[in-house]
């Protein structure tokens, strides 16, 4: 028994779940600090955003060994010795569209570290329904786009990836089976936190208030430091130490109440405002935050200060899960490119606007077909549109930013060759073209759908693999 575990035995049991990554590309030092700077029981690392699965699918199609968050195995190699020594367990959806490849890489890392026999990876699969799509469609599942209502058949031949969001159940099973690292595909962000709490406290799967509490705990920490001072608008100048931000940690109790905090000595802040900003992030109808595990009511959440960098969360109410699971489908749409040039004072905005007009005339004269041409003036109104008011004629510089989207790759490629010529054939005082021609990007679009959970859950598998 390590010291921090022994501390539990006297009073009420507390389980500490720490956030290590809030997205694929987050600060690589965070999980190391979470493991080394203080006591935690679980480290949860969320890697998957809506578009991430399709990026991973693309990588897997080029190399069958890829398709997962490649940051994850090297990170695990750094922290596995501490995790094993301290009895910390990891939950992560780093597996993406190739959880087996990811699990194998972690096991290899464990062997390299001489931890053979001490690391068991719980491999969760069954969320990936790409190979089952035609069967599902043939049996009458239309997988209509939740936003547009169009049936999937319209774009079936362009589908790149298809994954159902699955909940905490397989994580609980893997932990009960002794896994110290659980690697999943498209398990919900919140399930990575809820799973450990259900495992530790033995909550029933239909104890809706506690399921909601664990879900909201997960929501608060799933974006990493965004709950602990990062991207915090309120009094942003007063947030100190962001060179070493303390990522958030949940200290949960069996009744579903919990404290949000961070390790002592780290930067950032955990406060009622910092937690509130994260709670409203990506919020829909606050009465019904729907997950595969249940429905959480955000209007029931009570927050209270509980000491320095400590916020108490309780009162959370929930409701029964729905018979449907969300499916995240990615499909190939077409191409896009974005070109930029910088115009300087005086009259920077007017010069940039004149350049845009010339560019558009040339594109039209070439007869190129675009779904859309979008012009923004960075430094004048790119993010606030007309709300930004009239552009300042004294602005030191304005960046012209023109984007195009088309199904026709040749049109987009031609567009990328029309930016540089403006330097010598357009308005004066222009710079910022050192980067060369803009890249033509493939657009992988997102298609959210719903499916009967009975089509998915029988296929979910948990395997325990020991290094």
């Amino acid at each position: 028994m390590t010291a921090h575990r022994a501390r539990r035995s006297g009073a009420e049991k507390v389980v500490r779940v720490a956030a290590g990554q809030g997205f694929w590309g987050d600060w690589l030092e965070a999980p190391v600090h979470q493991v080394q700077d203080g006591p935690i029981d679980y480290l949860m690392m969320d890697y998957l955003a809506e578009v991430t699965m399709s990026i991973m699918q693309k990588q897997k199609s080029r190399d069958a060994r890829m398709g997962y968050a490649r940051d994850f195995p090297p990170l695990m190699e750094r922290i596995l010795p501490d995790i094993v020594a301290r009895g910390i367990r990891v939950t992560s959806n780093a597996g993406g569209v190739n959880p087996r490849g990811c699990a194998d890489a972690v096991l290899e890392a464990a062997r390299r570290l001489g931890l053979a026999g001490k690391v068991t990876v719980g491999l969760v699969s069954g969320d990936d329904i790409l190979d089952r799509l035609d069967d599902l469609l043939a049996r009458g599942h239309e997988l209509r786009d939740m936003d547009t209502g169009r049936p999937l058949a319209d774009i079936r031949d362009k589908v790149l990836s298809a994954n159902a969001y699955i909940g905490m159940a397989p994580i609980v099973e893997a932990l009960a089976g002794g896994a110290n690292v659980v690697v999943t595909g498209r398990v919900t962000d919140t399930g990575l936190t809820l799973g450990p709490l259900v495992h530790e406290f033995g909550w029933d799967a239909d104890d809706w208030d506690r399921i909601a509490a664990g879900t909201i705990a997960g929501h608060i920490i799933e974006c990493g430091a965004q709950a602990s001072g990062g991207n915090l608008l309120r009094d942003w100048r007063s947030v100190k130490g962001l060179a070493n931000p303390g990522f958030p940690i949940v200290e949960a109790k069996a009744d579903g109440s919990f404290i949000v905090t961070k390790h002592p000595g780290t930067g950032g802040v955990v406060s009622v405002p910092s937690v509130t900003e994260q709670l409203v992030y990506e919020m829909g109808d606050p009465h019904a935050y729907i997950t595969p595990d249940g429905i959480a009511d955000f209007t029931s959440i009570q927050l209270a200060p509980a000491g320095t960098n400590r916020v108490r969360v309780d009162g959370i109410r929930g409701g029964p899960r729905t018979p449907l699971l969300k499916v995240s489908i990615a499909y190939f749409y077409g191409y896009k490119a974005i070109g930029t040039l910088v115009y300087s004072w005086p009259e920077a905005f007017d010069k940039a606007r004149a350049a845009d007009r010339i560019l558009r005339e040339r594109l039209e004269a070439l007869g190129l077909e675009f779904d859309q041409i979008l012009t923004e003036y960075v430094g004048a109104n790119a993010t606030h549109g007309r709300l930004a008011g009239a552009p300042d004629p004294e602005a030191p510089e304005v960046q012209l930013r023109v984007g195009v989207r088309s199904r026709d790759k040749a049109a987009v490629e031609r567009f990328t060759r029309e930016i540089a010529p403006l330097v010598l054939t357009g308005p004066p005082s222009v710079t910022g073209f050192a980067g060369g021609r803009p890249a033509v990007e493939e657009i992988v679009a997102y298609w959210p759908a719903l499916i009967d959970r009975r089509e998915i859950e029988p296929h979910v598998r948990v395997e325990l693999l020991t290094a």
Partner: protein
Amino acid sequence: MAQSSRPATMPIQLRYLAHARSGDKGDTANVGLIALDPEWYPLLVREVTRARVARHFRGMVSGVERFELPNLSALNFLLHGALDGGGTMSLKTDAQGKVYSTALLRMEIPVPVRLARRLRPSR
């Protein structure tokens, strides 16, 4: 009706009354608007109406929904059609609506003169 007894008001930007964070779901941006002082939450509920927010963002969004979270002294707005297709389709700098929150903070609402002077002494 004692309508005339209402105190005189002056307009003030929401930035002095609230903080905010925004995110996305497809082509919809959400803005969570949080009162800087819980005492001002009723003022936000009364003045930052769905219709006024729709007018504020006219031409930029196709529809607005509003939800109340008195427990967090917060309002949540869903701004539909705000992201030019959203996700990877959008050509916008702010394709994921990360700073739509600050665009809402530009909105002015009428507040009692006394409060406005306290928040913005220069005026």
